């Protein structure tokens, strides 16, 4: 058995900075088998315990070892229908839990193996469709939102034999997977293939339809559907950091991501953006910060990221940070953006920052501003990240739905059921910002609950 972790290929920095193609190239079959052979096939696998979706990780790795990637894909799909997405965007808690990760060892590259299984082991969709076509029940479920949670729930519910319709307010499905995630992380052909897979199982997609406005949830329940799942994800947090955002040239990460990832029919390089200039500072310790930084680097900008903590507090992977730095990102760690400084016509010209260091704060070891440590970063534009809140707009038109103290759609304790009979909520709308794998797990959990509810009814 080889003990060295197989290295996955990446596009060289000098090349990838000039394109929006996928950065991490993934394993080929030989590499995947080689990596799979390192797996210890534990009797009580920690990795499975670490996986929120509960994928049989040793099971699919065993099939990779045998060289049967198609069967390995089927094995993963028993628990996770969105393998191609998860194999690229997952935060891989399974790898943290891997026994080989203990004592400074190198865990099995489970995420890359999952991706290899999707990329190389894809079987004909028709086979799956045929397998699923039987055993249809008469129960109809409406899912509002086609992001990770909605897609995962749809796939699971269809597999349970139900008829599922996904409503999306936009003209394309995917939610944050599409408008929050750039091509270099998740190629559109992979996302589209995954959506096609969910469609091929028997899910119906209805676009450009704003549930709450053109149809209320009560109308859905009254006329067509036996249950409704709200999976509307995240929206914009109105008023957050508002005073600083009034300076001209300050935009939100959501606006940047939506314009580049969703509105650029001619490709991200040709996105229509407000004037940004050349020097851009990114602030906000949020999961989307590196996404924005790496988009802007590809658009030829000089990008600086102001990070308030240490590498242990990153809301994205350390690998992401390293890749971004290779691409030219300037990292201002242990710093806090205090003010956005305007020039004489009110446009941003710089960001005043303070250095941070660990110090005693009421007996706790905390990051505190260092006295007289001000410094100014020149900027033509500032991107503020992390202005997210649960997108609960649909609650306005639905009697009985409540918003909890955190601003999320209120659900029963440890459940997805809301206070309205037949209405469920899952994912970020009910839990706040989630990692991809947790959003998928929420979709799966909601599907199980809805199935149980429909079986009873």
């Amino acid at each position, binding site marked *: 058995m080889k003990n060295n972790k197989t290295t996955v290929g990446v596009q060289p920095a000098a090349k990838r900075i000039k394109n929006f193609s996928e950065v991490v190239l993934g394993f080929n079959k030989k590499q995947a088998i080689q990596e799979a052979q390192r797996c210890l096939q534990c009797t009580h696998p920690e990795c499975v315990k670490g996986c929120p979706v509960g994928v049989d990780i040793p099971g699919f790795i065993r099939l990779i070892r045998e060289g049967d990637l198609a069967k390995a894909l089927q094995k993963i799909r028993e628990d996770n229908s969105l393998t191609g997405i998860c194999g690229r965007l997952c935060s891989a808690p399974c790898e943290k839990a891997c026994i080989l990760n203990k004592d400074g060892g190198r865990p099995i590259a489970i995420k890359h193996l999952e991706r290899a299984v999707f990329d190389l082991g894809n079987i004909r969709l028709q086979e799956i469709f045929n397998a699923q076509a039987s055993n249809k029940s008469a129960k109809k479920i409406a899912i509002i939102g086609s992001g990770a949670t909605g897609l995962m729930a749809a796939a699971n519910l269809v597999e349970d034999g139900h008829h599922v319709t996904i409503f999306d307010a936009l003209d394309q499905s995917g939610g944050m997977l599409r408008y929050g995630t750039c091509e270099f992380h998740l190629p559109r052909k992979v996302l589209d293939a995954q959506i096609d897979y969910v469609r091929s199982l028997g899910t119906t997609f209805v*676009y450009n339809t704003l549930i709450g406005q053109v149809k209320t949830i009560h109308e859905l329940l009254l006329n067509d559907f036996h249950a409704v799942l709200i999976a509307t994800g995240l929206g914009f947090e109105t008023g957050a950091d508002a005073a600083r955002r009034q300076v001209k040239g300050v935009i939100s990460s959501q606006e940047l991501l939506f314009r580049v990832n969703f509105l650029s029919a001619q490709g991200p390089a040709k996105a229509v953006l407000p004037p940004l200039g050349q020097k851009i500072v990114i602030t906000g310790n949020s999961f989307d910060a590196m996404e924005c930084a790496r988009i802007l680097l590809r658009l030829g900008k000089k990008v600086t990221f102001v990070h308030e903590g240490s590498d242990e507090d990153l809301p994205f992977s350390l690998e992401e940070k390293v890749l971004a730095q290779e691409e030219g990102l300037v990292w201002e760690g242990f710093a806090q953006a205090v003010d956005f400084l305007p020039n004489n016509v009110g446009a941003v010209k710089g960001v005043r920052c303070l250095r941070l260091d660990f110090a005693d704060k009421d007996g706790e070891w905390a990051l505190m501003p260092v006295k007289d440590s001000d410094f100014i970063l020149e900027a033509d534009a500032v991107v503020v990240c992390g202005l997210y809140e649960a997108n609960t707009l649909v609650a306005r038109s639905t009697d009985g739905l409540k918003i909890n103290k955190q601003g999320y759609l209120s659900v029963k304790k440890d459940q997805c059921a809301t206070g309205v009979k037949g209405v469920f909520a899952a994912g970020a709308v009910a839990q706040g910002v989630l990692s991809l794998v947790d959003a998928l797990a929420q979709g799966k959990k909601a599907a199980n609950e809805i199935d149980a509810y429909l079986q009873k009814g």
Partner: protein
Amino acid sequence: MSEFRVLSKQIIASNIKRMDIIAPAIVQKARPGQFVVVMPTEKAQRLALPIVEISAQKNAITLIFSEETLSEKALGDLAIGENVHVVLGPLGDPVLEDSEGIVVCIGYGLGIAQALPLCRYFQKKGNKVFGILGAATRKTLILESPMRVACHSAFVTTDDGSAGKKGSVADMLRQLAAGHQIAQVYVAASTSLMQEVASFCRESKLKINVVVKPLALSGIGFCGTDEVKVGKKYVLMSSDGPIFNGEFFDFNIYRSKAENLGV
């Protein structure tokens, strides 16, 4: 639900088109003052446009727009019978306060298209409605006839005096306020004109509502490009607009948001 087709179109003034688009689901639920986000083609940018008329008989909504941006031109270029790629809506939550007495609805330029449904609403409610229509010149004056039908009295002003009285809609409001007991005022115009009207109403203790040109990119409350400030509160146009209390509306923030979106 997702197919939208051009039913009719006509040029109603210099560079301004009226278009009826079949959108049955929107027709069923739209209320006066709401708006839609339109994407004429797959490659066009998204436009936020007010719903001017709703026809249950034709299953269509009416949009009126000038052809200035590429997207507006792409919309104007669509032929009768062609599909519109996206019509998302109805958006917004316009609150039309019921009140006794005279309601004045002011529209300047394309703002008249936003004032018209409000005039009709208040006329139906039994209010006495005064309409003030303004334009730069006769050639850009729109919807004069339907406004005359929808109002008890309609007053026309143009900047150059080529139609109606020479002067601004704000001057006309001042004259009306001097002779009548006005319950509330709605104004749909350029930001500076709305600011002027709002300032007069504040001084005269008249209830003022601004009907702003809608802003929205996603229309689903994601991107925040439609965030405006009313009093101390920040709200999204796509969920709470486009009619706001003019006394507390922050015109400067709206102006910079509109500039950012190229509106």
